[in-house]
């Protein structure tokens, strides 16, 4: 109830706890960067585990990597890089307060994100079909089968966690899209588009690291 009494000239989109729009925007941006730092540490645990086992079992990792589908991975890499571009365009349009521009570029970003997930679905299906899922459908019986399983555990763990972040990203994208369609974002108030953009770029960058570590590894050194 005191909510309204305290603020006379209430700018559009300014939450009650902030003094002015720049303070609110700075808070949102620092908040998202801090969150992304936690995400780096989160994926960092995966990457550290990957690096340790890769140094233990280079042969098995080369072999495991050579069974991954490089064209599909490369296609997905391009899809995500382009989606980062469209996302950056959406943020740019939001600075102009251009509602139509935001909606167009968010749509493109969403379509590219979905494309990535569809390709990922086909990749996962193929792996299940060939029996390359440790613990659930595992067919290799060779001498280095356990080490190979470790590679695929990391493959599914890391790409699965990345895909989960993509799915959350698309959910957030829909939310930002709806808000944008309602005309919430103006040249003055557009922090949600901007910080969602930061999140989207982060998820893309994680893939930029995953692609060479998982897919391209097999083309180097001692692959079969």
């Amino acid at each position: 109830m005191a909510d309204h009494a305290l603020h006379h000239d209430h700018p559009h989109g300014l939450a009650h706890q902030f003094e002015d729009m720049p303070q609110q925007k700075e808070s949102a941006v620092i908040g998202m960067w801090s969150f992304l730092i936690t995400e780096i540490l989160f994926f960092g645990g995966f990457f550290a585990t990957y690096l340790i086992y890769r140094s233990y079992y280079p042969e098995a990792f080369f072999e495991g990597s050579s069974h991954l589908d490089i064209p599909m991975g490369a296609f997905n890499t391009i899809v995500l890089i382009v989606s980062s571009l469209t996302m950056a365009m959406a943020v740019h349009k939001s600075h102009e307060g251009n509602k139509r521009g935001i909606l167009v570029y968010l749509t493109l970003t969403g379509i590219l994100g979905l494309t990535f997930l569809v390709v990922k679905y086909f990749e996962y299906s193929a792996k299940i079909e060939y029996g390359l899922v440790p613990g659930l459908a595992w067919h290799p019986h060779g001498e280095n089968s356990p080490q190979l399983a470790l590679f695929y555990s990391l493959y599914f763990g890391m790409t699965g966690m990345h895909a989960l972040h993509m799915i959350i990203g698309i959910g957030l994208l829909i939310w930002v899209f709806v808000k944008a369609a309602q005309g919430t974002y103006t040249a003055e108030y557009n922090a949600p588009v901007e910080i969602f953009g930061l999140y989207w770029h982060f998820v893309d960058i994680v893939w930029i690291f995953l692609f060479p570590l998982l897919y391209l590894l097999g083309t180097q050194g001692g692959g079969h």
Partner: protein
Amino acid sequence: MAITEQDVQASEDAPSVNYLNNGYGLKSWLLTKDHKRIAVLYIISISIFFALGGLFASLVRFELMTPEGDLMSSDTYNKVFSMHGIIMVFFFLVPSIPATIGNFLVPIMVGAKDLAFPRINLLSWYVYVVAGILGTIAVVGGGVDTGWTFYTPYSSTYSNSNVILAAMAAFMAGFSSILTGLNFVVTIHTMRAPGMTWFRLPLFVWSHYATSIIMLLGTPVIAITLVLLMLERGFGFGFFDPNLGGDPVLFQHLFWFYSHPAVYIMILPSMGVMSEMVAAVARKRVFGYEFVAFSSVAIAILGFLVWGHHMFVSSQSTYAGMVFSIITFLVAVPSAIKTFNWTATLYKGSIVYDTSMFYVYGYLGLFLVGGLTGLFLSSMGLDIHLHDTYFVVAHFHYIMVGGQVMGYLGGMHFWWPKITGKMFPDICGKISALLVFLGFNFTFFPQFILGYMGMPRRYHVYPEEFQILNVASSLGASLLALGYLVPGVYLTWSIFKGPKAPDNPWGAKGLEWETTSPPPTFNFEETPVVTEEAYQYGQIEEH
């Protein structure tokens, strides 16, 4: 909350609307975005878990009264001490001060209306509650027997208890503390009132800033570790299973990369509480303000470089062990700076002999013993003898219970008038501080001796010559339990019957004492303008 008509009438001089009487229904609490109400929600929920964890501790102490395992089977005992640890660490100690007193005070101390993200703050409480429910289901549905550390292969190959559920609960509790830390970092960066520069911030805020850094950088690593563990348990991925090419020691590295810094999540906030209370009871500016401020940050940074001292005896190379040992010794430097500076603050101060002073002295004594015994454990040679004995148990209880819980209780007393608007009887506060201090020492000092004599932790059957000290410890624990029960009684009493608190009952400095008790919903009638450094006790008017 129960606020009677008389109370409202009695407070005619104060503004009639404060955060407590601004809306009464359940909905006004469960959907609140007010950091002060969320702090109260947290106080209630962590108290429940403190009681639950305490119950398991009592069972442990009961069992250890006799050398035979006569009260429970070994399997049950494993579950009891595991649940004690998991509940106390993840559901009480980590959120204890930051989510309650910190949540209440950080925005007020920086002169803001609320935290930067009030909805995220409420979300963190809900995530915590869901985590707590999952944890409770894990307890009721058969318990967990891995120890609070979830070490593989106890938690993977050889466990048949609710590991996934308990790990999920700890994962979510961690998520809740990330959200709290995120809110603090942003609030301290962007929401400081005009004139509130970094070096005018109360040391409580500095220590919460350092704590938040650890929450942001450390917690995601335990999260991913628990994810890997759940994948191993759930899908048979072999991340930590030697049969499948995995390395169980890797789990220990990942686990302690978070869990050692987490120890500082469990001590830094109480150091902030102490800085405020020392200044208030000595009526002096904290000696060497900048040093105390930076020592918090130093502890946060060094804390990330010492995790290997938990693995002196688990196949870590001697040279790595030496580096970890040296860095661990270095942590003693910022900790000692704090202790010396608090003592120097007391020197020639006008000491006030009230409840706060009792808690300050108690804290200094217990933290001193806890900190110094840490040096025993960081020396590699001695640690081989003391590793996994009761010496370790006593050491970390001196830090976590003697430090953080003492700080939590002290802080709750110190800011109780601000939080509830009611005064508690000072004599009761002094008695409780004394009971806690004595009970704590009776409980845990014998454990140092037991550990040195070679009694390992986590065993419930022991040789007869250890019985006397174990009985002493169990009796001490009863005294300690009483010490925790008594404040629960008179503090609750004070909410209903206590006299109304003035705005600044202790004559303390700080923005929180300049607003009303309890504060209005937006903390201040007008945004405060800060014109002086913290703790300018020279100019205080007597009340």
